[in-house]
C-alpha cells in the first residue's frame, strides 16, 4: 500500500506515518462507557416497567374480577347498587359520587383559579405577585390528608351551621368537593397563568390601541387567545379531582350510595378502594379483585384526561413559539 509508506514531517519534529496515526485514532473499547449507558437506559426503562406493571396487574386482577360468576361487565357498568356481600356489583354509585365531588371541586377551582390567574398575569404588580404566588404554592404543597381533616372538622360544621344539621349529614360530598376545589386551585391558577403569560404582548397592545380598557383586553383578547391553555388546566384539574383519595375518604363518607343530594354521604371510587384495603384484605376475594377493577377504571379515566390535557397544552405552546 502506497499510503502506508507515505511519511510526512509532523509538528513534533518526527516522522509520522499514516498507519501510526491510524493506530492512535483507532476506536477504543470503552467498556465502562457502554456499561454506564446501558445502566442509564435501564433506569429510564424503569418507568416503562412501572406502566407495564400497572397495566398488567390492574388488567389481570380485573380479568379475574369479571371472570367471577357473580360479576358481569354489563352489570358492573350499568347497575346502581354496589353491595359485594349481596353479590351486587354496580359501579355507578361510586362513579356518581366521584363525579359529584369532582364537579364541586371544579365549581370552586375553575372560577377562582382563572380569576386568580387573570389577576396575577394582567393586573398584579411585581410585589403583589411575589406575595401571592408563594401562598398558592404553599396550598399546593399541603398533604391531602390535611385537606381531608379540614373538610371534616371545618367545612362540614360550617355547611351544617348554614344549611342545618338535619339537612347536612356529617359525611357529605359537598364538603369534600369544596375543599378539593381549594386543593386544586393552585394547579388551575398556575397553569392558566402560564397560558395567559404566553400570549404575546403585541396582542394586548393592539387591544389597548383600539381603546379597550384593561378588563376588556383581558377578557376579550387575552383569555380567548389563551383559551386552549386554560382548557388544558381545567382538564388536568378534573383528572386530579377524580384521582384524589384522602379528602373523600375522610369527608365524603363510606358506603356507596346512589344519590344526587350533595348533603348526603356517598363513597367515591377512590374512597371505596381506600376503605376496602384499609383492613387486612385477604387475597383473591371479590373485595380484593374489585379494587383492581375500580383502579383500572380510575387509571384509564385519568390517563385519558391527562393525555388530552397535554395534547391541548402542546398545541397551544406551538401557536406561540
Amino acid at each position, binding site marked *: 500500500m502506497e499510503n502506508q509508506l507515505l511519511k510526512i514531517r509532523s509538528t513534533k519534529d518526527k516522522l509520522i506515518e499514516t498507519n501510526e496515526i491510524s493506530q492512535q485514532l483507532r476506536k477504543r473499547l470503552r467498556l465502562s462507557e457502554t456499561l454506564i449507558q446501558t445502566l442509564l437506559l435501564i433506569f429510564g426503562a424503569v418507568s416503562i416497567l412501572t406502566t407495564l406493571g*400497572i397495566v398488567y396487574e390492574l388488567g389481570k386482577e380485573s380479568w379475574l374480577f369479571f371472570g367471577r360468576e357473580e360479576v358481569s361487565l354489563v352489570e358492573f357498568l350499568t347497575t346502581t347498587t354496589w353491595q359485594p356481600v349481596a353479590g351486587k356489583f354496580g359501579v355507578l354509585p361510586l362513579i356518581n359520587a366521584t363525579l359529584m365531588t369532582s364537579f364541586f371541586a371544579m365549581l370552586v377551582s375553575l372560577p377562582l383559579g382563572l380569576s386568580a390567574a387573570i389577576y396575577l398575569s394582567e393586573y398584579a404588580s411585581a410585589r403583589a405577585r411575589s406575595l401571592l404566588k408563594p401562598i398558592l404554592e404553599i396550598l399546593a404543597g399541603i398533604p391531602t390528608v*390535611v385537606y381531608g381533616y379540614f373538610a371534616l372538622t371545618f367545612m362540614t360544621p360550617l355547611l351544617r351551621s348554614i344549611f342545618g344539621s338535619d339537612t347536612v349529614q356529617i359525611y357529605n360530598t359537598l364538603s369534600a368537593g369544596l375543599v378539593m376545589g381549594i386543593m386544586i386551585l393552585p394547579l388551575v391558577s398556575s397553569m392558566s397563568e402560564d397560558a395567559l403569560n404566553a400570549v404575546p404582548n403585541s396582542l394586548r397592545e393592539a387591544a389597548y390601541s*383600539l381603546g379597550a380598557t384593561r378588563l376588556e383586553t383581558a377578557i376579550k383578547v387575552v383569555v380567548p387567545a389563551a383559551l386552549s391553555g386554560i382548557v388544558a388546566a381545567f382538564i388536568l384539574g378534573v383528572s386530579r379531582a377524580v384521582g384524589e383519595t384522602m379528602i373523600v375518604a375522610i369527608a365524603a363518607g363510606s358506603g356507596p350510595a346512589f344519590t344526587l343530594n350533595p348533603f348526603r354521604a356517598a363513597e367515591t371510587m377512590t374512597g371505596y378502594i381506600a376503605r376496602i384495603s384499609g383492613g387486612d384484605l385477604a387475597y383473591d376475594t371479590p373485595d380484593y379483585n374489585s379494587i383492581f377493577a375500580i383502579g383500572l377504571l380510575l387509571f384509564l379515566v385519568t390517563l385519558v384526561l391527562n393525555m388530552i390535557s397535554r395534547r391541548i397544552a402542546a398545541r397551544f405552546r406551538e401557536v406561540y413559539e
Partner: protein
Amino acid sequence: MRFSLVDSSNKGKTTNLARRHQIGKIWHAIFFLSTATGLLALVTLLLSIINQSFGLMAVDYKVDPSTLSARPLEQLSNSELIDILKSNVSKIRLRTLEREKPLDQRTTDELLELVNTQIVGQKIIYTWKLHESIFRRAEIEAEIARDYPNARLEFRAWLNWQFLKNTMSSQAQFAGIRTALLGSLNLILYTILFALPIGIGAAIYLEEYARKDLWYNRIIQTNIDNLAGVPSIVYGILGLAIFVRALQPLTSGALFGTPAENGRTILSAGLTMALLVLPIIIINAQEAIRAVPDTIRQASYGLGATKWQTIWSHVLPYALPGILTGNILAISRAIGETAPLILVGASTFITSDPNGPFSHFTALPIQIYNWTTRPQEQFRNIAAAAIIVLMTTLLMINALAILLRNRYSKKI
C-alpha cells in the same frame, strides 16, 4: 381581530366610557378577591388546626390521683411509681404486666401511663377547641361542675413533648407519634435510596444520551409525563400487587431469614413511594440538566473527553443544585402521601420503633388519617397536633431546599 372591542355605536359617549371603567374596577376587585381566597383558605386551615390542638379537656377518674401520692404523679420517680402500682394493682394483673415487660425496665412515661390506665382510670369526658376554651370558659366550667362533679377541667396543649416521644396508645391523652414519625422517616429513606439514583440516571439518559428521534426514547419520555399524572392510589394498588404480594419473599425479608409474616413492610412502602415520586424526580432533574449551557459540554468534548467524563465532571456538578431542589420537593410530597400507604398496609396501631426494612410500620399521615376518622373529639385534637408536626417537617424540608439553592447558586 375577531372580537369587537368597542361597540362602534357608542363611540365618543363619555358616559359609556365611565361605565366601562366602573365595570373594570368591579372586576379588578373580583379578580383580586379570588386570588386572596387562596390566602383566606390557607389562614383558615392553619387557624382551624391550631384551634384544635389546644383547649380545655374535662377528665374523670375512677381514683383521684391525689389520693395516691401527695405530689403530682408527673413528678414521681420510677420506683415511687412502681410502688404505687404494686400496692394498687391485683397480683395477677401485675404478673401479666411483668411478663409483657418487667416494670423496672419501663420508662417513666410508660409507668406513668400504667398508673393512669390501671389505677387512676383517667377518662376524657369532652374536649373543647381553643376558641371555645377562651370565650366560653365560665360556661364550660359551670357545665362540667354540674354534670360531672368529680371531673377535673384542665387546659391541654395536645402538641407537647410527650406527644412527640410517646408511642401509640388507645387513649388519646397518652398517644404519641414517635413510631409514626420514625416510620415516615424510615420509609422515606428507602424511597430516596431507590428513587434518587434511578430518577437522576433516567434523566441523564433522556437528556444526554437519548436521541429524540428514536421511537423508544420518545415512548420513555411520553410515558414519564403520563406517569406523573397517575393518581397516587393507583401506585398504592401497584405496590400492593407487586411489592406486598408478588415479591413477598423479598419484601417480607423471608429470603434473608428475617421473620415477618407478610410483605406489608417499610421496604414495600418505600419502594411504592419511590415509584410514585420517580416521574417527578426525573422531570425535575431533566429540567436542571437541560439548563446546563451547551458550551460547557463542547469545551469538555473539545478536550477529548468521553461522554460520561463530560457528564460526570461538568454536567452533573453544574446541574446538582437544581436537581437537589427538585428532588427535595418530590421527597416532601412523598412524606405527605397517605393513600398508597393504606394500600400497602400500613398498620395503625404499632408501638415498637421500626427496625430495618422488614418491620411493619405506621406513618405520620396514616396516623392523622386514622385519628381523624375516630368518632371521639380528643382524637381530632391529637390529629391536629400530628398535622402540625407533619407540616412543620415539610416546612423545614422546603426551607432546606431553598437554602441549598441559594448557597449553590451563589457559588457558580
